[in-house]
């Protein structure tokens, strides 16, 4: 296979990965690494580098749409980004000292966990718990636009969320994924943010987290232009297309046969929850 053929096939594969990632909520990253390594025999280090870059593209591309709608909590995002970027730095540095084979095994386990949480969805929780002292001092409490008007919420258990975010960053830097599933878990379950706020803020953070480790990967020579070109353009196009499809499918009653309240691109069954019905698409929010 010549370079132009390889480029075309990888672009098509990435397009499908981006599409699949945005429709299922798994994100592009968790699909792109196995695709490149198992499908095209690419060395996992090149694959992780290419995946990281495409994760930045989809996260930033998606953020354009929903940041303006006022769901994401910028203070929570920024505070937790200290944890994710430091974690990602650690993960990227660690990647140089861990055998590629072991990275592949860890990747598989994380992929399984992501699929599980995507299908099952996190348990419901109420978002109007009592205020938390640390969260109040950090001015994390905020509000978001719901169906029935603006809703207030309190942020809880900041240290636990912070710790989970460090772990999410570590996995992101080590595996080249967005690890949005863990980010959403930390905010939705640990810190008790409304689900909608968790997913949008998570997606908002993924780009910054990925940029932290992408810098290290660049300096180490893991970012191959010839490989990153088709993957980035493909995943970006695929996830934007997936987002369009989701927006259309969100019309009453429509579902793409995707079950569960997954913390992904708005979720396939959001229509069942009135206050979430208008949740914008979030391609790449997990991968």
């Amino acid at each position, binding site marked *: 296979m010549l370079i132009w053929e390889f480029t075309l096939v990888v672009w098509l594969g990435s397009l499908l990965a981006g599409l699949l990632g945005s429709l299922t909520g798994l994100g592009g990253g968790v699909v792109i690494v196995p695709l490149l390594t198992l499908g095209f025999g690419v060395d996992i280090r090149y694959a992780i580098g290419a995946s990281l870059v495409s994760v930045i593209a989809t996260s930033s591309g998606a953020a354009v749409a929903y940041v303006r709608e006022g769901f994401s909590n910028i203070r929570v995002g920024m505070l937790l980004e200290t944890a994710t970027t430091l974690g990602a730095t650690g993960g990227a540095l660690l990647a140089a000292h861990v055998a590629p084979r072991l990275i592949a095994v860890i990747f598989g386990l994380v992929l399984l966990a992501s699929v599980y949480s995507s299908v099952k969805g996190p348990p419901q929780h109420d978002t109007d718990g009592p205020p938390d002292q640390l969260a109040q001092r950090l001015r994390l409490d905020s509000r978001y636009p719901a169906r029935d008007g603006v809703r207030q919420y309190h942020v809880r258990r900041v240290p636990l969320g912070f710790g989970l975010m460090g772990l999410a960053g570590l996995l992101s830097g080590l595996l080249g994924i967005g690890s949005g599933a863990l980010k959403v878990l930390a905010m939705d379950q640990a810190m008790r943010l409304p689900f909608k706020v968790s997913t949008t803020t998570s997606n908002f953070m993924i780009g910054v987290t990925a*940029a932290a480790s992408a810098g290290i990967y660049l300096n180490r020579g893991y970012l191959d232009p010839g490989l990153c070109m088709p993957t980035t353009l493909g995943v970006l196009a695929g996830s934007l297309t997936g987002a369009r499809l989701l927006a259309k499918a969100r019309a009453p009653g429509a579902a793409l046969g995707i079950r569960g309240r997954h913390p992904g691109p708005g979720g396939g069954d959001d229509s069942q929850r009135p206050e979430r019905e208008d949740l914008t698409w979030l391609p790449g929010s997990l991968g």
Partner: protein
Amino acid sequence: MAPRKPGLTDERMDQIISGILRVGVGLAALVVFAGGVYYLAKHGGQLPQYRTFRGQPPQLRTLPGILGFAFSSHSRGIIEIGLLLLIATPIARVAFSVAAFALQRDRTYVIITLIVLSVLVCNLVGGCR
């Protein structure tokens, strides 16, 4: 883009951030695409070699190296500039947040955001290896 001093609400911040991301991703995709077309025209007929890891040549690992490589019209250097723009997009977003929190006179968050920014910049210029 210039935020008025008293009027920089969180909502306004969101809008500006959204604009930064849109421009950054759009520009990056454009440069990567242009470099990609050029790359395929020049190297499309060769054989890809990704099975064994060799890493990039030194001039594609550092900021000045990439710039020099691209300006001597190397297609891979041009693509790499697009990738740099992409990596720089979230960094620009964080940099803007520093200024925004400063305008809001929110010292705690200026410090928090500066920490994030310094980690990002440090990793990109290769100071943290």
